[in-house]
Structure formats: C-alpha cells, structure tokens
C-alpha cells in the first residue's frame, strides 16, 4: 500500500529537504539564544557562558531600566488583552454559533476580516482613528491594548467556535430533558465543556499580544510604551549587547510556556486529535 502511494521511490530526497528546512528554520534562533548567554559584549564571537545579560549588575534584562520596562509593558499589554479579548470573544463565538438568521453571515465576515488584514493597514487605520476620532484616548497604553484586542478577538472566536461545533447541542439538550433550568444548562454543562477552549484561546491571545509588533508600534506614544518587539526593531541594527538576545529569549520562553501549558490543558480535556487540529490551525 505505502509503496503504491509513493510515486517518487524512496523519499530520501524529500526527507533531506525537510530536515534541511527544519535546521534552517530553527538553528539561527538557537544560535541567537546561545549568544544571550555570552560572557562578553559580542553577539558574534563566543566568549564563554554567563547569565550576566539576564541578571548582571549593569546592562542586563533585570537591571537595565529600558529593557526591564519594555518587558513589563509587554506583559501588561498581554494581560489587559487577554482580560478583554477572552470574554468578548467567547461571547461573540457563542452568539454567532447559536444565532441563525439575518445578520449572522455579515457578523461572521466582519469577525474574520481582522485575520486577513495586513498589520500595516490595521495599524494605519487604528492610528488615524485614535488621532482623529478618539483624541480623548489618544496614543499610548490604552490605544495599544484596544488595538491588540481588536485582532486577537478573532483568534478567540475561531478557537471557541471550533470547540462548540465539536461539542454539539446534545449535552445541553440532555440537561434540558433532565429538567435543568437554562442557567444550569449553560453554567454547569456548556461552560465546563468549553473551558479547555477558553484556556487555549486565552493562551493564544496572550502569545499573540506578546509577539505583536506593527499595531503596538503604530499606537505607541513615548518611550514608556515601548514593548520587547519594538525594542528588537529599534536596536537590532544598532550596536547592542547580547542583552537584546537575552530579552528576546525571555520573551520566547514566556510565549512557548504559555502555549505549551494551553496545549496540554486542551489535550487533557478535549482529546488529542482536537488538540492537534488546533495546533495546526485547522479549526
């Protein structure tokens, strides 16, 4: 069977390309991480192992005010973004899934549009909105958080709807047949079943917020609203120290830990196949 399905003989050539691709995709980042631990000011010559760019007395992520503040601001935005986008997105997903009839198609399209809008278009649009319409809010932390919520919202909706489809209406119907009031059908049946998707969507919103660059940059005001991504953009070509690699590494570890946690929660409660399809964005 497998020989029959394979038109290219032994797929050694394909295996080689795949291996080479993965190496090419991952190795540069691993080298960048390695240099975060360099015991010297160079980002290109290895001078021994040290944590000085993470915790050292001067110029480290922990002690350099600019770096520490950027990390703090990144996390602050991520927390706000999750706190707003998750409930908003879960509600929108529930509403869209259950609401049949006029208007739901339009709202569905509206919800999907931010996913395909290039970030610069979104950044420009939001910048003009906050300059021309919401001058009272103005640029800065509030605008950055609002901008991030606007496009992470769609991720939350897509993930939660995927889970809603796979749950189906049967559980709620069973609860209704057994005489559960509508409030219990929702809070004691649907919501617990939905919980893994809510956790997963919150994690995705968190990671997306942390790694966002364009919208966050367009809506920033002064140095106090600089995030890690903005710092990487503005300093990568300057003459920085491995501290830049160190802060990027911290950023990466936070993102990956969040997602790994969400993946395992999802797999534990929603099943392996669904977790895999979520991870490959098949929802």
């Amino acid at each position, binding site marked *: 069977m497998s020989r029959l399905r*394979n038109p290219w003989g032994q797929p050694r050539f394909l295996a080689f390309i*795949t291996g080479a691709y993965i190496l090419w995709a991952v190795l540069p980042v691993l080298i960048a991480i390695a240099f975060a631990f360099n015991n010297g000011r160079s*980002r290109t010559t290895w001078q021994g192992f040290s944590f000085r760019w993470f915790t050292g007395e001067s110029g480290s992520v922990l002690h350099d005010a600019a770096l520490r503040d950027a990390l703090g601001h990144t996390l602050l935005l991520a927390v706000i973004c999750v706190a707003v986008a998750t409930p908003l997105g879960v509600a929108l997903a529930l509403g869209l899934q259950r609401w049949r009839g006029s208007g739901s198609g339009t709202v569905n399209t509206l919800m999907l549009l931010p996913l395909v809008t290039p970030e610069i*278009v979104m950044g420009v649009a939001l910048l003009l909105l906050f300059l021309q319409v919401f001058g009272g809010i103005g640029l800065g932390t509030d605008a950055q958080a609002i901008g991030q919520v606007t496009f992470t919202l769609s991720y939350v909706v897509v993930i939660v709807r995927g889970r809603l489809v796979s749950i189906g209406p049967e559980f709620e119907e069973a609860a209704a047949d057994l005489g559960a009031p509508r409030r219990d059908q929702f809070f004691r049946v649907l919501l617990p079943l939905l919980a893994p998707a809510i956790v997963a969507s919150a994690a995705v919103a968190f990671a997306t917020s942390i790694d966002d660059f364009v919208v966050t940059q367009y809506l920033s005001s002064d140095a106090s609203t600089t995030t890690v991504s903005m710092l990487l953009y503005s300093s990568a070509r300057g003459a920085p120290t491995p501290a*830049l*690699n160190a802060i990027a590494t911290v950023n990466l570890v936070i993102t990956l830990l969040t997602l790994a946690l969400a993946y395992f929660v999802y797999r534990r409660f929603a099943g392996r196949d669904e977790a895999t399809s979520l991870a490959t964005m098949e929802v």
Partner: protein
Amino acid sequence: MGSRWTWRLVALPGVVWLSVFFLAAFYAVLAVAFGNQDTLSQPVPHWNPLDWNVGYVLDMLDNFTSGGPFWTVSLRTVEFVAIAVALSLLIGYPVAYFTARHAGRWKGAILLALILPLWINYLMRMLAWINLLAPDGIGSDVLHSTGIEWLFLQVGLLDEPGGWLNGQPITVILALLYGYLPFFILPLFVAIDRIDGRQLDAARDLGASPASAFFRVTLPLSMPGILAGAVLIALPMFGDYYTADLVSASTQTNMIGNQIDEFMRQGSEKVTGAALTLLLSVFLLALMFYYLRTTRRAGTTAQTT
C-alpha cells in the same frame, strides 16, 4: 423566540467592538484619504462622503504609472513578493508533502518543528539573522568559506564581500522567505494530509504511473492548499516594512510598506499615507477575491476530474 434575541444580545458587545475599532477605523482611513490637509500638512478629514475629495486619490494613481514616484517601489514590492512566494512553494511543497505522506512515526515531531517558528517572535527571527550576517557573524563566515558568497558576488547578487546587510535585495527576499515560509507550509500540509489515500490507490489501479498519479491526483487536490498558503503569506508581505528595514536599512530596497510607514509614522504626510494605505487595501482586497473565486473553481474541478 426569546432565545433568538438572547444570542444576538450575547454577540452584541463583540459586534460593537469590531464596529467601533475595526469598521470605524477603516472609515477614518477613507475620511482622511478623501479629506484635506491644513497648512501644517495635518489631515483635515471629511466625514461626510458627499464632501469627499476624490481627486487627490485619483491623482495618486498617476504616481504608480511608469516614471511616477511610486512606480519603482511598487514594481520592487511585487517582484520581492513574487520571488519569495515562488521560493516558498519550491521549498514548502516537498516539506509539506513529506510530512503528510512519508514522515511515519516522525510525523508528530516534524509537525511540532514546523509549527515552532510560527510562535517565535518575527523580530527575534530577524535579529537572529542580523547577528549571523553581520560582517564578523557566523553566517557570513560559513557563506564565505563554502564559496556561496563568491558565487553571489559573481552573479551580481551581492555588492561586496560581507555586505549582506547593506541594502541587498537578495537579503530582503531571503529574509521574507525565512519569515513567512512557516505560514505557507502549514495550510499546505493540512491540504495534502486530507487527501484520501484511496484516491491515489484508485489512480494506480487504473494504470496511472506514480508520476502521473502525483500530477493528476495529488497536485490538483493540493491546489487549494497552495493557493491558501500563497495568499496567506502574500497579504502580509505586501504590507511588510520591518523586514526590509532590519536586514537592509536602505531606501534602495524600500517596499510599499516602507513608503507607507515613512509617510504615516516617521514623517507627517498622513494624508498621502492614508491614500496609499487605501490603494494598497483595494489591491489586496482584489487579490483576495481572486483567490476566493479560484479556490471555488479549483474545488469543483478537483471533484469532477
């Protein structure tokens, strides 16, 4: 009956949010692009469509014609994106195909490796290459000692030894490829993975050679995945400014995104920036509609052949 309104009410906050911060934001682009500017070249938006000053945007279109100020940068953008997408297909298809069909027990691990780059900060991935391609970087060394640098110098893709980060178009194209390829592979993998193996068995049973089974069954059936991946990476590439800024830092490799960024954020010609953004959006919208039409057609063709 009551429950019909309940669910609309539940969706309402999200709908309001998207209307205010997404739709209204786009309307602001229109109002500024079709508006005026004051003596300090600050935008004076025209909120009433009846007052719209359409002439300015139409004049802008002239700038895109041959010899106009945006002609070169538009051409360059299309060229960079086209080459990067073509290279993505060249590398991405074998990788997606292998992972879907032949990875065997390694499938999960390879899939994880394919997903991983999606969650590494784009700017960190660019930083990694900036470190590698610095004149004394490890990457520059490797490219030098393997003769690749010599080759690139010979064919004129590189201006000077070790000058990878000094305004080289090839560096920008390869950086775009590096940045967006993971987003291309995943939908392609899903498309190939979904193809029913029995369809291939049927083709082989009916006498198709392995190659013709591939070209007449697998390839047409993976077409929607190819198109989806291509559009998925082409859209953000058309609006990209940071890649060129980071790995080239030269106006010689400016893309349309850099042009918009210069008007909008760095400079203060916001009306021009808004008009450019509007034109870019219209172009990308047309691209997307073309894609939606093609996939629908490809879907029906694949089913009937």
